[in-house]
C-alpha cells in the first residue's frame, strides 16, 4: 500500500515574508509556543516576561536591585527619560517601553528599629543614625544587620550609607570592671 503525503503549496514570496517577520519580531512582544512574551531590557540585561503590565519594583527585582537604594529610569529613544516609581505600573505593549536602567539614588531609605527613614547617601555618624529614632549614643548602642547577625558599630566609626541598610538600637548595659 502506498501512502501519499500531501504537502501544502506555499507561495515563495509569502514564505520569505513570514521568515522576515519571524526574524524581526515586534520590539517587545513575541510568541513562544503560542504564548505571548514581552521583552524588556533592564541595565542591558534582557528578560522575557509573561505579563505586559509590570511595576517598577518588579522590573528592579529582575536585576536584584531595590528601591531603597536605586531608582528606575525608563529610557525613551526620542523623548526624555522618565523615573518609574516602585509601585507604578508600566504597560509593555505600548511602543518604545522596553528599556530601563537603574541609577543610585542620592536620598536613600534605611531602616532603624524597624522604621524606614530617608537619608542622604554618604557618610553619617552613629549619633546621626541614633538621632533618627530619638536616641543618643550615651544610652544606646547602634547595631547593623549586614550579611549576618546584627553587629555593634563603635560610636566613633563613620557609617557609609548606600541605601537599604538595616540598623537596630540596644540600650547600653554592662561595663568594664
Amino acid at each position: 500500500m502506498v501512502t501519499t503525503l500531501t504537502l501544502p503549496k506555499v507561495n515563495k514570496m509569502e514564505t520569505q515574508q513570514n521568515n522576515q517577520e519571524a526574524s524581526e519580531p515586534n520590539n517587545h512582544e513575541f510568541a513562544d509556543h503560542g504564548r505571548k512574551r514581552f521583552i524588556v531590557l533592564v541595565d542591558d540585561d534582557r528578560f522575557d516576561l509573561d505579563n505586559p503590565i509590570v511595576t517598577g519594583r518588579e522590573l528592579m527585582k529582575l536585576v536584584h536591585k531595590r528601591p531603597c537604594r536605586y531608582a528606575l529610569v525608563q529610557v525613551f529613544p526620542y523623548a526624555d527619560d522618565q523615573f518609574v516609581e516602585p509601585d507604578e505600573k508600566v504597560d509593555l505593549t505600548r511602543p518604545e517601553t522596553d528599556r530601563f536602567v537603574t541609577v543610585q539614588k542620592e536620598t536613600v531609605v534605611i531602616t532603624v528599629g524597624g522604621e524606614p527613614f530617608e537619608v542622604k547617601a554618604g557618610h553619617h555618624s552613629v549619633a546621626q543614625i541614633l538621632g533618627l529614632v530619638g536616641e543618643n549614643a550615651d544610652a544606646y548602642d547602634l547595631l547593623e544587620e549586614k550579611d549576618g547577625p546584627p553587629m555593634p558599630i563603635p560610636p566613633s566609626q563613620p557609617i557609609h550609607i548606600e541605601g537599604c541598610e538595616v540598623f537596630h538600637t540596644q540600650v547600653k548595659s554592662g561595663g568594664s570592671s
Partner: protein
Amino acid sequence: MNYPLEQVEELKTYCSKLLYFEEAGYPYFRMVGLRLPPGCSPAEIEALFCPVDRGDGYPSRLFFPEQVSTPYQRNWHVNVRLGERNWVAYSWKVALANRSLADGLLELLISLTRP
C-alpha cells in the same frame, strides 16, 4: 550542659564553625571565624565563649588567642589555658541575666566597641 538548639543555631550565625567542649565543669563554645565588629582587627578570629560564671565573678567571658585591636582600649587582664591552648580575655561584666547565648555573645562584642 544542654542548651536549646535554637540558641545554638543562632550562635552559629556569628562564626564559620562552632564547636563545644567542657573543661573543669564549665562550658565553652569554640567559635572559628568569629566576626568582630567594625573597627576591630582582625575582622575575624577564633574565640572561646563561656556563657557562665567560671567562679571569677564574671557572668560570661570571651577568650581570644591574642589581644585584638579595638577602637577603644580594653583591660586585657586574663590569661588562661583552656583546651590545651593559651587564651586572653578582657574585663567586661555583662549586666543582664537570662539572655540567650547569642545575646550574651553580642553584649561582649558590643563591649569591644564601647568608649
